[in-house]
């Protein structure tokens, strides 16, 4: 049986109209519409477009969350094995809509999602981590080139075949690292590269050094006497026994624990969940990582307004930047809602 694909296009490619119809609300039609015809040939009967979603670019841009969730509901009954959006070429709003729908569908159904765009389409930078985006020319004149490339890649993904490098497969680099076994030991590869660099020959690094977000430190807290201070740590301090099973490495969650009435963290009551440092001294006295005792003293002395009655903890060890960002955003929301005015972050 052929794989089932749902296709997403905008109002223009559906033949409904141009800019004047860009507020067209999402609808789904059974079978192919517009460029879906070209895919039909390229998919060679191995996969079939079972339904086509049509949505106006302006409508999607102005109602992203609402449109995406409405479309997800429309798609569900068609039980797709894969999702194709576009190609959007260099159309910015269309590209963004294609990328956003790919992300939403991938999250909801966990199926392969694929689009086609010109590298400078803003949708590329926004969604390349979430979708396979085949590189296309900048206008619809490139349809004949885009469709076979997209069809080829989607079939590969549907069959579970290994996808090669971007330059070999024709998609835009997603920035996702994938393991593979090489012919040579990593040590030999390293010495090979070393020799090339010494000789001034060209070589290709296996990993381009990342560029990080740098966060400027906030200005000092002026009014300490009225500050509500919270403790947040990546050092893994948690109630003894690690009740929420925060992982020793590569954490998937953070913990929130109440310290109302707790003046001192002891080896009977607290420990660390962290698997990446010599935890002996943290297990003996968790205040060494999460200084509750000292902050209680400062609270008593009136140096600070008060210590927030909850602390937040996770394990920084091997935890991905994506997870860390997610934890950070969620923790900050809770702190702000609770009226916390300053935070002490401790790491290990």
């Amino acid at each position, binding site marked *: 049986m052929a794989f089932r694909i749902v296709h997403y296009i905008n109002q223009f490619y559906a033949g409904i109209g141009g800019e004047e119809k860009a507020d067209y609300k999402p609808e789904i039609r059974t079978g192919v519409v517009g460029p879906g015809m070209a895919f039909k040939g390229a998919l060679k009967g191995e996969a079939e477009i079972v339904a086509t979603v049509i949505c106006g670019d302006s409508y999607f841009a102005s109602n992203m969350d609402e449109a995406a969730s409405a479309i997800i509901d429309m798609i569900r009954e068609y039980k797709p094995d894969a999702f194709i959006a576009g190609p959007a070429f260099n159309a910015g709003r269309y590209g963004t809509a294609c990328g956003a729908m790919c992300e939403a569908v991938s999250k909801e159904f966990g199926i392969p999602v694929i689009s086609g765009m010109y590298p400078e389409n803003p949708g590329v930078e926004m969604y390349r*981590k979430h979708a396979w985006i085949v590189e296309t020319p900048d206008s619809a004149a490139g349809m004949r080139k885009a469709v076979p490339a997209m069809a080829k890649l989607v079939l590969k993904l549907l069959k579970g075949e290994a*996808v090669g*490098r*971007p330059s070999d497969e024709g998609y835009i*680099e*997603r*920035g*996702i*690292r*994938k*393991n*593979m*076994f*090489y*012919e*040579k*030991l*990593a*040590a*030999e*590869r*390293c*010495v090979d*590269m*070393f*020799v*090339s*660099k*010494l*000789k001034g020959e060209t*070589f290709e*690094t*296996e*990993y*381009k*050094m*990342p*560029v*990080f977000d740098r966060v400027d430190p906030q200005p000092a807290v002026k009014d300490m006497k009225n500050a509500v201070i919270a403790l947040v740590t990546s050092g893994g301090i948690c109630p003894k026994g690690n009740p929420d*099973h925060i*992982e*020793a*490495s*590569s954490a*998937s969650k953070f913990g929130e624990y109440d310290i109302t009435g707790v003046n001192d963290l002891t080896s009977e009551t607290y420990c660390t969940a962290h*698997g*990446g*440092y*010599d*935890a*002996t001294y943290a297990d003996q006295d968790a205040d060494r990582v999460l200084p509750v005792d000292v902050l209680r003293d400062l609270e008593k002395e009136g140096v600070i307004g008060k210590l927030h009655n909850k602390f937040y903890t996770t394990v*920084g*060890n*091997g*935890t*991905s*930047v*994506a*997870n860390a960002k997610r934890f950070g955003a969620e923790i900050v929301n809770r702190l702000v809602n609770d009226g916390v005015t300053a935070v002490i972050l401790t790491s290990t």
Partner: protein
Amino acid sequence: MKLELQKLNVKSLKFGDKTGFSDGVLAINKAELIALISEDPMLGKNIDADIAMPGESVRIMPVKDVIEPRWKIEGKGQVFPGMLSDVETVGEGKTLVLSGCAVLTAGKLVRFQEGIIDMSGPGADYTPYSKTCNVVLILEPSDPNMDKHDYETACRMAGLKAAAYLAKSCSGLQADSTEVYEMPKIRDAMNSYPELPKVGYIYMLQTQGLLHDTYLYGVDVKRILPTLISPLEVMDGAIVSGNCVSACDKNSTYSHLNNPVISDMLKRHGKDFNFVACIVTNENVTLADKRRSSSYATKLAAMLGLDGVVITEEGFGNPDADLIMNCRKSEQLGIKTALLTDEYAGQDGASQSLADSCPEGDACVTAGNANEVIKLPAMKKVIGYQEEANVIAGGWQGSLSDDGSITVELQAITGATSELGYTKLGAYTL
């Protein structure tokens, strides 16, 4: 300095009346081995030894260290100096190697920071130690409340003792093969191959405390200043591992003894470059130590007039800062670098792989993304404690299924992303 490695090729293991080697088979007197290990009062009464062969449906965990059996049969000192034997300098004479054989220290967890070795199935493809004939020690502390540092020391020493004992018991036999290594004095090395660039190896060692420590002639490496060492000393066990936390990228004692960067650099010495020196340095936790050690290690490279260095990291996250300092400072001194590391890019591979970076690190080889998830099917036999999969680094609550399969990140597999480059794993960008 000249060292001859006399290798006996171990193809099979068996328990027998007398420990010794014949026709590719290493026989082990189990009672004698256990009696030797049990001399340590820090270890408990239920010590056991077992055998695991390549291809068998066997899982060993939690693994602390892997050691290749070696014993010096000629020359100064003895293997694992300062640990097992006297502090005399090693690296000269003749050393017997039980090639293809390894001692594994397993048994009760020190702290949830140890590794998994599967002898067959998909997990076996990722660890170099599924290809060795393994003598496994199953250890426990004599007191369950023993200080963890003491128990770790006892496990480490048990492995070294067993490895030396096995090799010693096979001395006096005709070697299956012999490898001869020679390192000239630095003065002579400097005058050799004037047309070739002079290069070195900056050998970074993990030094951050319990299960994060490394020893050089018995000295805790966090207490050293970077120093020079001959590759031949490394082959005699001058560097001993005390770490296995996130076991994928910690250098086992076995991988130090067989350091593939050293062996590849020796192979290309005199052809592509003049390999002059090996510099060992540490990865301490404080910023001052990181700055001091990176400045000192690269200063040594500059004093020697090196044109380039290969730098290998041990571990990830915090030590990425040491790696980058060593790289940047070398390049600023006009010394070209190639880096060997591994990656923590998240389970989906979409996050940054390193915790620090610099534009000078333009020649970087990686041993793969340690966060990638693998399913290890159930094995017929488990040596050790399988339930620890739920708590060890790389696992999570629920990693061990009822059917005995284990779903973990590669970081839980011993040696999977070895930053000495002892595996063929790597990564590419989708």
